[in-house]
Each structure stands twice: as C-alpha cells, then as structure tokens.
C-alpha cells in the first residue's frame, strides 16, 4: 500500500483529499477480501447490518423479544425453549457465522436443565495479579 507519502507530509489539513485517495486505493483490497469471504461462505447474507446479525450482537441476547402480554404458562414455555437452546449452543462449537436460517444441527429438548447443570461460576476469590506478584 502506498499511503506512506500522504502521511509523511505534515500538511495542515489531513482531511478529505487524502482520505479519498486512500479509500480509492484501499477499495480494491476490501472488495477482494469480500470476494474471498463469499467464496468461503456462499450462504452469507448480503447485508451484514441486517437485524439477524445485530440480534446476535445484542448477544446471548434477549432472544425472542416478546412485546405483548402473555400468560405465565406461555412465558415459562418460552424460557424453557430458550434455556434448551442455550444449553445446546453451549455444546456446539463457539464460532458461528451469521447464517440465513436456524442452525440445523442444533438439538434441543433432550435434556432438561436443572440448577445443578448450570456452570458453577464462582467469583474470583484470588487477588488480581496486578495487585500482587512482580512489580517492576
């Protein structure tokens, strides 16, 4: 990449002109990278900013937003489904790319989670290593 020349000039204005040049030069690599990605994952959706993608980003997220009042029975069912889904996901490999539809390999409902199954997460009782040990 030959953007070194631009950055070397201590010009008063860093601004748009140089940015344009850089972007035009950078465009080919970015598009090439996009082609590489699409070649590897043909099912990748067109727009990464779609709501599916963002919902994943909302993370471990509030899954299945319910915006109308429901009876307790229905809520409990949804929670069980969610719980099963999370348990099954935890068994699968961690890295996923956004895919068009639901994961077909996911098996849920084969095991009812109980409090004992939940990962025991204790807080770190150990003092942070920043506070102890080597201080140079």
């Amino acid at each position, binding site marked *: *990449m030959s*953007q*070194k020349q631009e*950055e*070397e*000039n*201590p010009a*008063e204005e*860093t*601004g*748009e002109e140089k940015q344009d040049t*850089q*972007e035009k030069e*950078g*465009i080919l*690599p*970015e*598009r*090439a*990278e*996009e082609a*590489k*990605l699409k070649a*590897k994952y043909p099912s*990748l959706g067109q*727009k*990464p*900013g779609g*709501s599916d993608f*963002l*919902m994943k*980003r*909302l*993370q*471990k997220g*509030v899954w299945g*937003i319910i*915006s109308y009042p429901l009876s307790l029975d229905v809520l409990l069912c949804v*929670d069980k489904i*969610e719980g099963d889904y*999370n348990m099954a996901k935890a068994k699968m490999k961690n*890295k996923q790319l956004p895919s068009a539809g639901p994961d077909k390999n996911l098996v849920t409902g084969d095991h009812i*989670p109980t409090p004992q199954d*939940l*990962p025991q*997460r*204790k*807080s*770190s*009782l150990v*003092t*942070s*290593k*920043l*506070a*102890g*040990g*080597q*201080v*140079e």
Partner: protein
Amino acid sequence: MARRAGGGNDIQWCFSQVKGAVDDDVAEADIISTVEFNHSGELLATGDKGGRVVIFQQEQENKIQSHSRGEYNVYSTFQSHEPEFDYLKSLEIEEKINKIRWLPQKNAAQFLLSTNDKTIKLWKISERDKRPEGYNLKEEDGRYRDPTTVTTLRVPVFRPMDLMVEASPRRIFANAHTYHINSISINSDYETYLSADDLRINLWHLEITDRSFNIVDIKPANMEELTEVITAAEFHPNSCNTFVYSSSKGTIRLCDMRASALCDRHSKLFEEPEDPSNRSFFSEIISSISDVKFSHSGRYMMTRDYLSVKIWDLNMENRPVETYQVHEYLRSKLCSLYENDCIFDKFECCWNGSDSVVMTGSYNNFFRMFDRNTKRDITLEASRENNKPRTVLKPRKVCASGKRKKDEISVDSLDFNKKILHTAWHPKENIIAVATTNNLYIFQDKVN
C-alpha cells in the same frame, strides 16, 4: 509512518513500570477490561474480566531524586462485581468490569463508578490511619469484658495505625438495563450520570438507586427492523445538558436534554458521507464506532472505528476535521479478521491533557499516537523486552507489503491475540497507562 521521536518538542517515551504476571498462560479473570486515571492523575484504576478492581496510587515525588515522576503502587483492590445468573432468560451475567469512571474528589474519600453488563456500583475508597483504643467494655482484641470487672472509666483515644484503604459499595444501580451496558459517563454537574446499553440510555442521580430516567430509546417496535445499536455514550465535559452517543453504523448523535425528556431526536448528527460505490460487505462493520471521547476543552470529540481515529468539531456535522489511520494495512486482511472475529474488537482512544495528542491501541501490543499539531505519528510497543526504566522506546513500523526493511514487521507476523484495547493518559502529565491482555504498562516521557 513514524518519524523517529526526538529533538525539539517531541516526546521521548520511556518504560516506567509493568504490572501483572509474566506467564503466557493467561487466566480469563486476569484479562484487563478497563483503565482509567482519576481527575488529578494520582490514582489509576483497572478493571478485569474477573470483576475485580485494582487501584494504583502515584507515590509522592522524591524531590532529591527527581529523575522520574512517582511510581504507581497498589493502593486498593476489591471485588466489584460477581457473576450472576438470570434464571428467567437462562443467561449468565458476566462479572467483567466494562467501565470505571471516577468522581471528582469532594472530601478525603475517593469515589468511582464501576459497571458490568447489567449493574452499576458506586464505590467509596477511604483511608483509615487511626483507630480508637481504650474501650471500657471491650478488650483490645475485641472480646467483651465482663461489666462487673470494670472498676474505673477511661476515655478511648485515637492512636495511629498502619494505613488501611477500604473500599465499600455505597450505591447499587441495578435492573435498569435489558441489554448490555457499554458506557457510563458522569455529568459535569457531578450529581447525575448516564449509562448506555445497546439500545437505551438512562440518566441516574448518584443518590437515587431505585429509579432512573430513560433518555434515549432506539429499540424499534418490531425487532426485525433493527438496523443499528448504540456503541458508546458520553456527557459533554462542560455543558451538563449535552451528551453524545455513537452507533454501529458510524454515526454520532448529539442530544440536548433541555429539548425534551426523551432525546430520541438528536440535535446534531455527525456522519461522514461515504461514496456508495466504495461499499463492501465490510463497510458497515468497520465503520462501527467503538469509542467516543470529548476533548478536555469540549470543542472536539474523537471517535474510533476499526481502522481509524477521527476528530470532529462539534460545530461541523458533515465530516470530521481530522482523520488518522491506525492500521490501514489491515484493509487487505479483512476476510481473515472477520473469520477470527478480530474485526469486532472494540478499541478505545484517549486525549492527552492539552488535547494536542491522541492515542489508541492496535495489534501485536502496538499502540499509536497522533500529534494533531505536527501531524506526526508514532507506533510503540508494550513489551517486557524494553523494561529498563528510562530506556527510550524504539518506534515500530509495520511493512504492509513488498520488501521488508530491517526492524520492520510484516503484517503477516502480527500477533492478533495481542491487542491493546484500553489506554489512558494522565490528565496533566505525560504519563500513559497501556493495557495488554493481562499486563498494565506505565510509560513516561523522559525527564532530564
């Protein structure tokens, strides 16, 4: 492109200290997740993935040996947040400290806000160097005396003791966020603060924990219509009615709380126009703003997206006034950076005390500084190899392609697991704190 630091007004950065374990096997809990100096710079707080806060205090300068500024030593450490479980949603709530913000000091004690994904806590850190002795009904070890054995009375007195620093949670602000909190920011009125999650921003009063005001809500009625999320938010340093929030689409909205109770309509929208013919699959992802910081003056704000740092003049919405490329050579690696999730890394950025230099982190434990006046930039490395105090750090250079010169590092040899996401600059002096995965480095400028 780095000029050799040295001469004139250029700062020469030297290694000062490093905190943390040497071993390569990093426990998850030790991953540093936030770094923040307090308003005087005397205290430096870190938060980690294990929910712990460690505060360092700068020792008073030794007037005789003034070849360096005071060192930072451990002052206090405490468990701020614990892991929790949301039984209703079968979701874990991480204890990782996302942000720490200091309150300005009002009395002998220090106060800070720390937050994880769901709960914000106000911590009081106070010193105790005296203790009462000579109780009538208690022995010195605390056992109670039999009252019938008391024949004389005495007045308990305070006697000096070894300094003890105590941290206690004074307020817990909970249950106000459905989504994950990414920012907290204390208002210049020093009475209120905001907390922002992916879709909402709430305004709190520091004294009131059972309610907060929702001031921004971008959750669409139908979640299928979701197009962007809030990535960071900050109050203006001087105007108590003004705050900004950034989005995953690369925009920043400035809101004025005087305009309406719910600030869903921005007062200003900062967005750099993009040539639609330049768009690629990655465009939106790399335009997502990971951090926004006002300058100390309040005139400018800085945003960090995946590849660059931009400085915006609050008076000009249609484009930034300055743009600095952090690691442009990564543009031709976006495919693999997407596959290994690095493209989603959230780098922070910071200003120096006089707003003349900005700093941000990169990969391979490199961090970058851009001088706004001279337009020069430098790349430095946080590494134990340079750990002799007062050794001037050698500038680093990454070779994007072609012939690699001596001392240059090629893009393909960069270690993408060594990322510097969190950096902080002392508010008054040229002292910086740089966090690698599990170590905290402190660098100072060379004092002659």
